[in-house]
């Protein structure tokens, strides 16, 4: 079955350029997360979408980062005026509606490896 799909898988960009990363969640999954994984580091929470609720943007590192999601489908993460420290793997994950009794697992995509030169 289809899993979480992310594109592009690799992106090399020049410092100062804008980039857009895309995530297609599993159909029916209302929750969508973006994480960043820098080399040798753990997963850093960026943003969380749940249905039509206001997204939790508390993890976005600066105002150069923004994300959108249309309904319960595709999400895009945009990084404006990229810096070298933005180089990382950006991971998207989706899950069913969070049910504290079941602990719906996150289903991760394979990530987008971003390199800013």
């Amino acid at each position, binding site marked *: 079955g289809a899993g979480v799909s992310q594109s592009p898988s690799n992106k090399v960009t020049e410092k100062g350029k804008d980039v857009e990363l895309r995530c297609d969640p599993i159909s029916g999954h209302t929750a969508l997360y973006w994480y960043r994984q820098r080399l040798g580091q753990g997963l850093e929470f960026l943003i*969380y979408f749940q249905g039509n609720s206001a997204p*939790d943007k508390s993890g976005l590192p600066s105002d150069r980062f923004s994300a959108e999601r249309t309904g319960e489908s595709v999400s895009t993460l945009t990084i404006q005026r990229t810096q070298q420290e933005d180089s990382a793997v950006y991971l998207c994950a989706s899950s069913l509606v969070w049910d504290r009794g079941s602990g719906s697992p*996150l289903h991760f995509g394979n990530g987008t490896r971003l390199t800013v030169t």
Partner: protein
Amino acid sequence: AQSVTQLDSQVPVFEEAPVELRCNYSSSVSVYLFWYVQYPNQGLQLLLKYLSGSTLVESINGFEAEFNKSQTSFHLRKPSVHISDTAEYFCALSLGDKIIFGKGTRLHILP
């Protein structure tokens, strides 16, 4: 603030030996705890989870983890590792809808 600490960034262990990957958490409220695994060239996937009830939880491939509230730990163990267990292991906790991950522990299986 809530956090997850994985004390070891890398753990080398001989094949068929036991292993323990350590995870400690900090939270003032009840949390749910998870271990995720990332095999080489694959995405992260859930290994096991603790929500409530029995403090010892098991995965289908022989790993187990024990929730210890007094020590705020959720260490992952396996009595005998196999080369196929080579992967990076991430401990995570949930705070409502937000899920926080540790920095990961890379498990190296030595022949």
